[in-house]
């Protein structure tokens, strides 16, 4: 208190030293507000008397048609939004450039960024292409095409069940099937294991790029320029990467501290036991070459403790992160499937479903790869849950995509997924690099790592051709 007082006296003017403390902080706030006040005055000037000097050019109206729905009983619904710099009034609506009577709700007056629903009674034919247009009061026509009209999905049980079925086929079953690679992964030698871990990274990088490209396409097609869709994708992806990076680093630090403490006490958490890096699994006695040299459980446990700090994130956590990243990606995939069904952009052929299944099976492999050297016995449940975390979002995605599609939400999900995926890839290589440095090598000179990465991307590309 005393020290503070002296400090204040030395920095502030003599008069202010007599004033109470709150005055100083108020002054502080006032100083901070000065630039804002100048800015406010400037804005007031520009909107007021300054308008005549600065009002150059003609602001053009812009209306985005975000979504088109074809309803049974002969009705087309277009969801439009004013994405331009000025308020607009909608004057007319058309189908295939033929003016038609229509209703617009809530109003034909659209302030900036406001949405409206245009209802056009029209006897449309399933499978035919249509172009829906609206004309603003200055005579500019804005339109959006639909490749093949398909009846809108109504959020009823039947439709939800149908989407649920598709989601199960393309999301849950393949991922769970992919998890069955775990015993195979466990029996691999270290070198081969590293190949597969790197292959996982390759798979993930493909998925991440896929999510970004997909998001970019949606942004270009359906998101109005005013939302800066492409920038949003990059920002959200970076943010998602950083947040997850921060979370995993913090967790890593904390778990290191806790492990040190835990070694002195006999009682350890169940999860921890399960989680040990190179714990022996009774079921897979010949799991890894490294483990074979060890005879005793005790000795082995000591080694575990020594090596623990080399691992950035523990295998289960890593697997969980992968499954969350894949889950977000699959959510985006589900959105795309649901929206495509509704928009009539793809016919969900059997071939396409099979393509998604093959493609997504590799995601199961990605989840189990980090678990190769982990005791599995009491983890079966967890692994299944991770499979579901990765798979179930597909179903939720199809529901949202089918019933309440929002292109902005779609690109946000896709970019969160991309960020999460890249973060996991980063962790995988960080872990491998540490191990490698420990042994005096470099990961970039390890052929199996490079080959695995290449193989991973190639597998995804080839299976992606079926979609």
């Amino acid at each position, binding site marked *: 208190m005393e020290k503070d007082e002296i400090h204040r006296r030395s920095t502030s003017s003599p008069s202010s030293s007599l004033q109470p403390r709150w005055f100083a902080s108020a002054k502080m706030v006032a100083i901070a507000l000065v630039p804002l006040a100048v800015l406010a005055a400037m804005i007031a000037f520009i909107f007021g008397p300054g308008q005549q000097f600065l009002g150059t050019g003609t602001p053009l109206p812009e209306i985005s048609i975000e979504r088109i729905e074809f309803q049974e009983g002969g009705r087309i619904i277009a969801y439009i939004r004013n994405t331009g710099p000025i308020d607009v009034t909608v004057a007319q609506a058309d189908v295939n450039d033929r003016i038609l009577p229509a209703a617009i709700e809530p109003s034909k007056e659209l302030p900036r960024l406001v949405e409206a629903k*245009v209802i056009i009674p029209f006897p449309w034919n399933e499978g035919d292409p249509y172009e829906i247009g609206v004309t603003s009061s200055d005579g500019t026509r804005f339109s959006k095409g639909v490749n093949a009209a398909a009846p809108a999905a109504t959020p009823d049980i039947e439709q939800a069940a149908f989407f649920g079925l598709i989601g199960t086929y393309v999301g849950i079953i393949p991922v769970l099937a992919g998890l069955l690679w775990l015993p195979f992964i466990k029996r691999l030698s270290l070198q081969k294991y590293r190949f597969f871990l790197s292959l996982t990274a390759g798979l993930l990088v493909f998925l991440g790029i896929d999510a970004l490209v997909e998001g970019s396409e949606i942004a270009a097609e359906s998101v109005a320029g005013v939302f800066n869709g492409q920038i949003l994708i990059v920002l959200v992806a970076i943010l998602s990467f950083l947040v997850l990076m921060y979370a995993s680093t913090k967790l890593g630090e904390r778990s290191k501290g806790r492990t040190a403490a835990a070694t002195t006490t006999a009682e350890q958490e169940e999860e921890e036991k399960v989680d040990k890096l190179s714990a022996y699994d009774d079921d897979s006695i010949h799991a890894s070459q490294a483990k074979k040299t060890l005879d005793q459980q005790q000795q082995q446990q000591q080694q575990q403790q020594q090596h623990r700090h080399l691992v950035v994130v523990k295998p289960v956590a890593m697997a969980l992160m992968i499954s969350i990243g894949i889950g977000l990606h699959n959510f985006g995939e589900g959105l795309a499937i649901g929206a495509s069904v509704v928009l009539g952009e793809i016919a969900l052929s059997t071939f396409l479903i099979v393509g998604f299944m093959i493609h997504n099976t590799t995601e199961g492999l990605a989840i189990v790869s980090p678990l190769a050297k982990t005791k599995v016995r009491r983890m079966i449940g967890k692994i299944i849950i991770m499979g579901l975390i990765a798979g179930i979002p597909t179903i939720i995605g199809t529901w949202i995509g089918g019933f309440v599609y929002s292109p902005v939400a779609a690109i946000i999900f896709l970019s969160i997924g991309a960020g999460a995926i890249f973060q996991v890839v980063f962790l995988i290589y960080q872990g491998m690099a540490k191990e490698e440095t420990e042994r005096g090598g470099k990961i970039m000179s390890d052929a199996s790592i490079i080959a695995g990465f290449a193989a991973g991307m190639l597998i995804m590309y080839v299976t992606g051709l079926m979609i």
Partner: protein
Amino acid sequence: MITLKVIVVVAVAAAVLSTAFAVASQSFVDFLATAQDAELRKNTIGGHTAGYGLHETSGDVLDPASSSSNTASDEVAIDPDTYLRSFNYGRVSNLTNGSTVREFTLVADDRQTMEISPGVFYNVWTFNGTIPGPTLRATEGDLIRINFINNGTKPHSIHTHGIHKAGMDGVFETINPHGRFVYEFYAEAFGVFPYHCHVTPLEEHISRGLYGVYIVDPKTPRPEADEMVMIMNGFDTDFDTENNFYSVNTIPYYYMHHPIEIEEGKLVRVYLVNMLEFDQINNFHLHGNLYQLYRSGTSMAPDEYTDMVTMSQGERAILEFNYKYPGQYMFHAHKTEFAEKGWMGLFVVKDPTQTGGSDGSDSSSTRLLETKTISGDVGT
């Protein structure tokens, strides 16, 4: 430890997910809100033709085919009802040799923004503030004098089809803003002609609306008839060299909701001119009847007895017909694209023996209402 980690990761993911979900579900909430509002207020839209479902809405109706703005207002490019049967014979005086002088005044302007279709405002270029400009009418041999004033911001002129001296052609003598010019020529050759601005870019000067109809009657007048002028035109409001709107007498669909009343058995004479820009052809199809077609109106003998005439820009004709039966009859471009962008209208044929004409118009409009009600069952 892993539990904690899982919780944090899941929490972060959940926070992010829920944010994104909130964005996604916003539209769903809006959707529910509008669905409820719809119950409160009702506006009904139906088709101008049966087959479209009827729909009740809480919002606004966009239907140029069954409603229009107040065409008497200065905001609207023309009042098609007034224009239809308006003929401007000019200020008449006589020369010493006895021939008639008809003096007209045409003022060009290019600064106004007017309504050319319900709710659509467009920078129009006009003669005397309307599209089309006034219909000029004279008799063969009259001396025509047009006082032209350019009140706009660009050079303009008047090019009249017909026989006249080179200096009166409106091509080489463009009149600059605030300029004046007097066009003088004899009304040689009877017929129906367009007049329009001939300054380049011609396409723009015409499509923006600088045109009108000029009729020269033969010295022996045509038989007495219910006469009307129809100029087939259109507007390219988004500048893609394709018309967004088509019509006769400017306002799309106008004569659909304001049918033209004619008498059963009475001769109707339509002076029809095609001034449509951008499209190669245009045409006029009449329902429930055939007409005598006098191409360019330059002969007293009809060229054809038909219900279809196809014209290119600048072509025109006189159509003569009378209706045998009362009721509502359509007329429209038999280029359905044009029809469905506004070029359609209705004649209401009234039986003059019925007082108040109740039989013709009323029964038929009741019939139209019935049709709309029937179509209502399709939708809603």
